[in-house]
């Protein structure tokens, strides 16, 4: 049953060092505020899961919070590579992280299987692809009717999933609209979930078939306007592209990275996100 609380409370109660955690979002609605709070609370040894790790995972990796990364595409969207991830993988700074790498199809199916309570996902994939050689979690199953061999990957079952959504009602039902990505599956696959939202309303006023997570399927809800910045929240504010471009330079050097993290994360608070999106508010 969804509990309303502050983001520091939600992170303290739901994320522990050593956990497997997903901060999901597919370009849209990336839960930056939650990841920053995790960094501030000094959580370590995380196994991070995400289809598209981007800036916020670069930050977690660069701050030494990550033990292992399970992913399918790691990049600064529209800009380039993730420099803190590269520094870890190529040079071992601040430490080397373990990598479990999949394709998008595999990750999407693995989340789906997790949400469905299944131990694995079967799909037609990885044919001729070399990831199957380097990732022991890529196996196969045989169709008992046709004999076709299909790829199999373990279901993703995070200890906790963090997402950002447009709104929640007072019973804790959560609405996600627009590019919904894999967030519903990531929440349902997880033991616990923390959802930051742009606003809390009396009535979701949702289309009957919209993507809604019922309050009883959610652990914690935190009101954090702007919590997806510099990504966007459809209907609320647009993507801060300049920040993504700036990140490429900030993350290029360890010093500039650490200085930026101190100013913008360690010495900041969830409430600061509201200011960061003021100039990006939708005209609507």
């Amino acid at each position, binding site marked *: 049953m969804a509990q309303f609380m502050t983001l520091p409370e939600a992170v303290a109660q739901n994320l522990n060092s050593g956990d497997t955690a997903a901060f999901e979002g597919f370009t849209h609605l990336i839960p930056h505020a939650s990841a920053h709070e995790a960094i501030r609370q000094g959580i370590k040894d995380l196994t991070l899961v995400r289809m598209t790790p981007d800036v916020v995972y670069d930050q977690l990796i660069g701050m030494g919070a990550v033990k292992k990364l399970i992913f399918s595409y790691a990049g600064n969207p529209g800009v380039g590579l993730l420099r803190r991830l590269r520094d870890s993988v190529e040079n071992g700074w601040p430490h080397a992280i373990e990598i479990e790498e999949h394709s998008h199809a595999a990750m999407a*199916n693995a989340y789906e299987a997790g949400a469905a309570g299944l131990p694995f996902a079967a799909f037609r994939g990885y044919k001729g*692809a070399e990831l199957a050689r380097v990732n022991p979690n890529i196996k196969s199953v045989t169709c008992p009717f046709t004999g076709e061999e299909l790829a199999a990957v373990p279901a993703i079952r995070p200890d906790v999933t963090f997402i950002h959504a447009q709104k929640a009602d007072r019973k804790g039902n959560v609405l996600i609209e627009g590019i919904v990505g*894999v967030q519903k599956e990531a929440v349902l696959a997880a033991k616990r979930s923390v959802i930051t939202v742009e606003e809390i309303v009396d009535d979701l006023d949702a289309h009957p078939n919209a993507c809604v997570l019922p309050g009883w399927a959610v652990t914690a809800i935190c009101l954090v306007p702007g919590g997806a910045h510099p990504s966007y929240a459809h209907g609320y504010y647009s993507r801060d592209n300049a*920040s993504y471009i700036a990140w490429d330079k900030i993350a290029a050097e360890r010093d500039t990275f650490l200085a930026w993290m101190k100013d913008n994360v360690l010495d900041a608070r969830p409430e600061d996100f509201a200011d960061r999106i003021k100039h990006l508010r939708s005209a609507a």
Partner: protein
Amino acid sequence: MSETDFTSNEMMTIAASRALKNTDVCFVGIGAPSAACNIARLTHAPDVTLIYESGTIGTAPQVLPLSIGDGELCDTAVTTVSVPEMFRYWLQGGRVTVGFLGAAQIDRFGNINTTVIGDYDHPKTRLPGGGGAPEIASSCGEIFITLKQSKRAMVDKIDFFTSFGHGEGGDHRQRLGITTKGPTLMVTDLAVWKPDPVTREFTVVSLHPGVTREMVQAECGWTVRFADKLEETPAPTGIELSTLRDLNARTKAAHSGGKTGEAA
């Protein structure tokens, strides 16, 4: 009516765009393919269906998206589905006629590497990874590839098989039980390439205006094969070029602006 004043990048985008038909359902890969696919839609193929892996189906953006998940892709789409549904019902379901991919590294058989330069466990450069490419490469009816030529990108042996093209050539796809055609077209900034019907090695079939065989070879890491009947790629038409330039101008205007960007 054709223009003589155009860049090799413009020629690449326009030549790539011509390959898409009005009836195609195209899975648009990250990067270079996006411009080509949208130019097709804005010129000769107004009803082409463009799909991005973020779940947007039948999208028609006014400007080029910054990423595969821009809000405008959703705003202009026929419908937006979840990512699991995208990969299960739409890609794996066999409904996509063309997958349009870019490449960090590619070999003569259209095998693509976007994973690592160097050894996988101790890479010289860690690239983004495959994303949707491994299953785009096997599930779409056929694959078009577009990239800017360089010896660093077009190599004799790729460091990692992120997605499978024609493998070692010949019937390698069939031997792996892959029933789709694989790479059938590659458009670079210098030429148009098609696989040899037997060996499946990419072969230059058309040189862009002003490009010589030597220029193609100079930017390719393997010994290039040329078709017996080598054609010249038609230069961009005025409409193609103005459509591309208008799109780029709209895109630039939409994505720049006075945003501070200090708090990423």
